[in-house]
């Protein structure tokens, strides 16, 4: 029994700290936040133009993978780079912050603890350098 347990543990990717991932409610929790986020960026007039041409289905899958990965969950983000994805969108600071606000709203709606929200944002924030082109 002990040997089987050890083999199972060896099979799963080792993540030293998945506390933030768990605070989000794991895979299900992250997907719920992401699904609301994708709906909300279309609803908000500040962010709508930037997402007009995006494939929502792909967005929901890739964002969930990315959030899972940066929060210490058992995922690997295998999508395109932030630079490549955002290169033609002419995103400025105001647009970037508007997206952050929409994400904050989605996390708030699902009761993600404020500290965990900030821990996700701390991983995403530096991406402004590759995402903003204006």
């Amino acid at each position: 029994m002990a040997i089987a347990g050890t083999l199972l543990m060896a099979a799963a990717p080792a993540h030293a700290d998945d506390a933030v991932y768990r605070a989000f409610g794991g895979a299900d929790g992250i997907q719920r936040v992401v699904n609301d986020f994708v709906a909300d960026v279309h609803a908000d007039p500040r962010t709508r133009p930037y997402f007009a041409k995006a494939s929502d289905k792909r967005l929901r899958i890739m964002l969930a993978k990315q959030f899972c990965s940066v929060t210490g969950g058992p995922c690997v983000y295998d999508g395109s780079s932030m630079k490549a994805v955002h290169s033609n969108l002419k995103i400025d600071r105001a647009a970037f912050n508007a997206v952050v606000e929409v994400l904050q709203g989605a996390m708030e709606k699902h009761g993600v603890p404020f500290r965990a929200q900030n821990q996700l944002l701390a991983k995403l924030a530096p991406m402004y350098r590759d995402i903003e082109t204006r």
Partner: protein
Amino acid sequence: MTLSPAPFLFLRAFLAAALLGQSFLAMSAESPVGGKLLLTGGVSQIEGAAGGGLTPWAVIGGYGTREQFGVNVHTTFVRTQDYSLGAYGVTVGLADRVELSLSRQRFDTRDAGTTLGLGRGYAFDQNIAGAKLRVLGDAVLDADTWVPQVAIGAQYKHNEQGAILDAIGARGDSGVDYYVSATKLLLAQSILLNGTVRMTRANQFGLLGFGGDLNNRHQLQLEGSAAYLLSRQVAVGVEYRQKPNNLGFAREQNAYDAFIAWAPSKHVSLTLAWLSLGDIATIKNQSGVYLSAQAGF
């Protein structure tokens, strides 16, 4: 009675800033109050710059981002056991790079005025024009580095009670404070830290003039703030500000406060603090309440 030129200079500078700001507004997106995240413009500190309550931060006031401008108006009220202070002013942030502020303070000596031989309720009026320039960094978004947001600033202060200031031994009724601030939001810990280094010769922030018998030169003073974000809308924190001792008869101590700031929206923020100012003009251990409101548009 002739009008002193200083208010007109302030007014012209302010109008120039407002006109410049108008052209930025015409160029920017339609966003009404601007693209910065809540509370990341700080509140208005006692001299009118964006920051905490006592000390200026490296953040640029207002919610305008790089392509925008933001305007805040603020009013502040302080009451200790023996003194009161009222202040109001306006702060303009341009392109998240430059901040200009105009502020007017009234320092009411209340009953202490009698003790000081000035008369009950004698008041000192001070005008402050401030400018701040963000030099490098992004306090909020550079979450993967220790590099803070850094700004340099200056505050020109003019106290209107020149004759009385002369009588109490101050060497001047106006002066300029120069400062450098470094501000960092440790996003993963929900903690904001600020350190400020200021060169000043102001007595009680300038309310008792500039320079004195003990010292008449600019001296280095240290200031700091630490705040914890409880939620998107609420922050609590503490501040510390050193003050020089230029007047022999009116020794000063360092100032401290503990504050709570609440921003229900980008249009309004309220700050409440308990403030300790030490001795003021010979009357000991002044401490009390600080209340400030800021409105943005």
